[in-house]
């Protein structure tokens, strides 16, 4: 009995709209938003930079105390150096060189190399932590909506409790208690960031659950698993994509902010850690704080532009 009913449902599945055509449709809608395309282009550039950039740059960890605080190309700074023989300060002009296009920090490390390897860390943190949060949020949201009753009640009250904690303060507490290793920071962000997603998926699933196609699938004898994976989740996938795009910047910023207050992984040169060290050398080497910040800012901006464009494209009510 179960076998045959499964086949019937499979037949129904084939009548669904052509997937590539649907993706093409959404792509056409997204493409009309210029800012979203700028965002997408920057994200692709960033991924390429993080993936193959480190092959072409210098070693980001190599300190060189003969070339400290060199400004970026086209910039010149004046530096007073105490001369022990004449007992006087001599002012020398230092210009940026193409050997270090973005300058060097107070330990003589190449800024370009540090920014590039920082991109790798930030992107990895953003993608993995968001992935954990999305998977957890989707599971909790769907289970809550689908099972209902006391399970729903318990899960949603737990979500309420977790939502009351200010995200960053909870993160500070967890990382402080368990120690700042990068893997743990990623896990902590993922394990605290799922609440909004769970709520959204739950309310969306609740309204989908009573719709005709789900009722029909159930009437045809589809198992719970099949209803959830074949009908419920495909229908919330656009929501998941938008949520993921819009939560990645928050996650990247959270990691940077943790690094900034000294709860980052000291062994990994993330943008937050470079920024933190740059804060102390504002008067001698401003670029150390400026450059990672610009990268953070552009990355967050790009994801926000893309997320906003996707939301408009997926929203049938909006005329893009």
């Amino acid at each position, binding site marked *: 009995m179960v076998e045959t009913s499964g086949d019937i449902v499979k037949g129904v599945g084939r009548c669904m709209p052509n997937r590539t055509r649907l993706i093409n449709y959404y792509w056409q809608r997204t493409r009309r938003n210029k800012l979203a395309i700028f965002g997408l282009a920057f994200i692709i550039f960033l991924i390429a930079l993080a993936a193959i950039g480190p092959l072409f740059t210098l070693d980001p960890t190599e300190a060189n105390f003969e070339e400290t605080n060199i400004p970026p190309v086209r910039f010149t700074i004046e530096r007073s150096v105490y001369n022990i023989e004449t007992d006087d300060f001599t002012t020398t002009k230092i210009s940026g060189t193409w050997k270090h296009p973005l300058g060097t920090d107070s330990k003589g490390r190449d800024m370009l190399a540090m920014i590039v390897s920082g991109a790798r860390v930030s992107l990895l943190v953003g993608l993995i932590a968001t992935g954990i949060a999305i998977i957890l949020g989707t599971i909790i949201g769907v289970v809550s909506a689908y099972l209902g009753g006391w399970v729903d009640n318990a899960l949603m009250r737990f979500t309420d409790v977790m939502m009351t904690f200010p995200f960053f303060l909870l993160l500070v*507490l967890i990382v402080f208690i368990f120690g700042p290793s990068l893997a743990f920071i990623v896990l902590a962000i993922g394990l605290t960031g799922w609440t909004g997603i769970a709520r959204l998926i739950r309310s969306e699933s609740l309204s989908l659950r009573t719709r005709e196609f789900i009722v029909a699938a159930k009437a045809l004898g589809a198992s719970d698993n099949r209803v959830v994976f074949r009908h419920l989740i495909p229908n919330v996938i656009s929501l998941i994509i938008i949520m993921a795009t819009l939560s990645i910047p928050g996650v990247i*910023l959270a990691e940077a902010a943790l690094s900034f*207050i*000294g709860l980052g992984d000291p062994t990994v040169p993330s943008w937050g850690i470079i920024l933190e060290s*740059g804060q102390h050398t*504002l008067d001698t080497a401003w670029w150390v*704080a400026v450059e990672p910040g610009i990268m953070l800012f552009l990355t967050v901006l790009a994801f926000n532009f893309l997320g906003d464009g996707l939301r408009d494209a997926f929203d049938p009510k909006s005329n893009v």
Partner: protein
Amino acid sequence: MRKSWLSDYIVKRIIYSIIIAWGILTITFILVRVGPNSPADKYLANIAARGGDPAQVTAAVEARYGLDKPIYVQYFNYMGNLFRGNLGWSFSTSMPVSELIKTHWIYSFQLIFLSSLFAAFLGILIGIYSAVKQYTKTDYAFTFLSFIGISIPNFWLGIMLILIFSVKFGLFKTYYDTTLPLFSLDNLKALVLPVITLGTGMLAGYVRYTRSAMLDNLKKAFVTTARAKGLPERTVIGKHVFRNALLPLVTIIMFDLGSIVFGGAYLTEIIFGIPGLGQISFNAIFANDYPVVVAVTLIGTFMVLLVNLSTDISYTYLDPRIRYG
């Protein structure tokens, strides 16, 4: 009859908040107990250097803190202490944590209060203007700027402001002066950069929310009615559209207070050296001073809980259409 369901609703909300509060305290307790640290850790290096026995010291310290008791006794002690307002002892500053918080909360409060005021006031004004002038160049400019405001990392913005206005032009001090009296013009001047740092993200958010809430309501039929009655445009926008857009805005402003503002204030205080709760938590992290870090997180969380509760209750007055079962 109306009064009775209202107060029923309020009582329900209060009981619900108490349950959430219990959840918050329990999760915090579990986190601290599961964590690998022991209050004895900070003595161990010292003791080992003098040739003492670490195991003996750990046992003694844990007995002193009641950590040798069964876990449920520890749990009740923890709850009891918090209930009496005893937040523990801060060893790095040698005073009770509650004393520490009493002397420092005002700095966080003034920063958050002024930033919220600045962001809400300016954000709502710009949002209304943007909505009324929809699809003009100014509207596009404000929309684009609000995107930038939302995306700019606030701790970086703070550093840039210091770099430009303090280091380069020398207009402001690079550090907050704690000797200034709280209600003085100098203090207000010292808070200009921190307020911009914390307020910009919120401001940009409010511009976007106000604009979209205004646009939603501008399409409604009652606006056409109001215009047809011959009301001046000012009255239509101010009294009819804005009044209706205000409710979702209040929700968002209140929600922001929890999700963004406390984290933002934490970082802003550290950048500018403002001795608020974020700063004491930051110092406590380096001193491994557990009770302070836990207390600051708990205080932030309970503020959010209170704000949520008061938002819910104020709704019953703000929007008489809402009926609660």
